């Protein structure tokens, strides 16, 4: 398949070529880096703004409502109105709060959300940094969010914040493990940690989601990603009906908006990484590569919003049990299935690994069910 450079790459190359005429080489290198950073720094917040719009629209439609439709046509200016409102709101800091921590937390939470964009391949040649450990970089940087959330929750000096923060940390640490484990088969198949190489290994329709192990690994990875960014049904850290707003109870105005921004940008990044790992990245016919990437990513984001429109929140023990009893053993065994797929010859491996996958799924499912807590008996409610 022949791919030409996407338009954004052509523009960047043109600018650099123009500058190369009269500037020394090192400034051109710096400007090249700056251009990538600027593109991400613009793309991230704009994505966040329109994801809020999209989420409100889609959830509204699912709940028999129109969603925002007042500001601008189809409510398209709603994010800007929200932004103005957020910026002009009073910034409230609790009297007993740990001022430094309380101030730093929203900043710290946005940094990893922006950093992970640097290794996502948005299109052919459209990766800001082609790290040879890009995948691990993504996973490592996204763990920094945990610390930032905990800083905010502890710095607020509010018991609901602290509860939300503790829940966030417990949940993120738990879901980190099946997430990494579900990525291992992909590394096994491609033999690389670079996101760009992973996408290139899937070109020509050899998407990993079409393999038995890839299908389940993609589901597990996506579910863990949803849990990592604290979205419904895993939104226990900010469960409104239980602990007010969780870790961002004491935040208002722009600081709250930063938490929100981090959540949405992480949601986009997780969807983008799922696309990169399992759905063939930017590969696809006819359309330009970045359009394919955005199409697939927004399809996954739609699924996230669909979850939010449908599912109720997990209970804490269900949440932990799901991660440790179902997902973790399943992803561990999934690695073996992926190894089977790798070593067997081509037509046989589909059958063998498919059967192995089904057997493992059934075993893990029933093993985890047996241990699940017995049905509660209500003594006083009857």
């Amino acid at each position, binding site marked *: 398949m022949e791919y030409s450079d996407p338009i954004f790459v052509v523009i960047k190359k043109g600018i650099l070529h123009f500058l190369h005429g009269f500037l*020394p*080489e*090192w400034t051109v*290198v*710096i400007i090249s880096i700056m251009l990538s950073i600027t593109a991400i720094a613009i793309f991230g917040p704009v994505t966040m703004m329109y994801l809020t719009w999209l989420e409100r629209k889609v959830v509204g439609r699912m709940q028999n409502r129109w969603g925002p439709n007042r500001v601008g046509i189809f409510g398209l200016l709603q994010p800007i109105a929200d932004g103005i409102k957020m910026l002009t709101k009073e910034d409230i800091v609790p009297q007993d709060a*740990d001022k*430094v*921590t309380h101030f730093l937390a929203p900043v710290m939470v946005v940094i990893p959300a922006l950093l992970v964009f640097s290794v996502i391949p948005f299109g052919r040649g459209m990766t800001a940094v082609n*790290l*040879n*450990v890009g995948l*691990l*970089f993504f*996973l*490592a*940087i996204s*763990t*920094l969010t*945990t*610390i930032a959330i*905990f*800083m905010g929750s*502890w710095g607020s000096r509010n018991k609901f914040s*602290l509860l939300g923060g*503790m829940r966030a*940390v417990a949940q993120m*640490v738990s879901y*980190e493990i099946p997430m990494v484990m579900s990525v291992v088969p992909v590394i096994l198949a491609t*033999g690389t*940690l670079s996101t760009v190489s992973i996408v290139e290994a899937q070109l020509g329709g050899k998407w990993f989601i079409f393999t038995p192990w890839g299908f389940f690994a993609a589901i597990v990875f996506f579910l863990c990603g949803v849990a990592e960014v604290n979205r419904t049904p895993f939104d226990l850290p900010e469960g409104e009906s239980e602990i007010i707003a969780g870790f961002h109870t004491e935040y208002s105005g722009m600081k709250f908006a930063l938490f929100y921004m981090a959540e949405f940008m992480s949601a986009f990044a997780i969807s983008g990484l799922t696309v990169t790992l399992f759905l063939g990245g930017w590969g696809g016919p006819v359309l330009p590569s970045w359009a394919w990437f955005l199409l697939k990513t927004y399809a996954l984001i739609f699924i996230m919003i669909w979850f939010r429109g449908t599912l109720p929140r997990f209970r804490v023990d269900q949440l932990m049990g799901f991660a440790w009893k179902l997902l973790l053993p399943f992803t561990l065994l999934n690695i073996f299935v992926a190894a089977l797929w790798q070593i067997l010859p081509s037509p046989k491996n589909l059958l063998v690994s498919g059967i192995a996958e089904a057997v493992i799924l059934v075993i893990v499912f029933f093993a985890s069910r047996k241990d699940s807590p017995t049905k509660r008996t209500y003594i006083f409610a009857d």
Partner: protein
Amino acid sequence: MDVLHCLARFGFIAATLVTLAAAVMVVSLRNIFHCALALILVLLGVAATYISLKAEFFAVIQILLYVGAIMTLVIFAIMLTSKIADTTVPQTNRQSLVSFAILAMFDVFFIGSVIKTSWKVNAVTMAANVDAKVLGMAFMNEYVFPFEIISVVLIVALVGAIILGRSDQ
């Protein structure tokens, strides 16, 4: 490209200074939670050092393991134990002045001796590319026995930690 090298060097020195300042904060701040946050900064600075040594894989592992796992554990332990924000409790014992003097003397001699030593730099390893594949090969071929031992140690430690940390039924 000389300017870029200068910038990289400046960045490394800045990261080093930030790391040292954060390390001082870890041992001197009164609020133990702030200490943990400063320790995270130290670990990130050490990861930056690894990147300057062209050990990107190791830097990422450092962030993933230390910041993601160990620091979360430490913060959980801090939360579970004590009154953290109470600044009236003294956080240092009486040895602080003595140990400060001894360690300062140690540092002076140490830096002096390091500067006087002439290091034989190995040009081959300087240029070598150590990525995840090379490390994996090393783990699975030459160092496979220590690798297995260390995994057993880790499992034993985790089981022990669970047994120790479990509340008595």
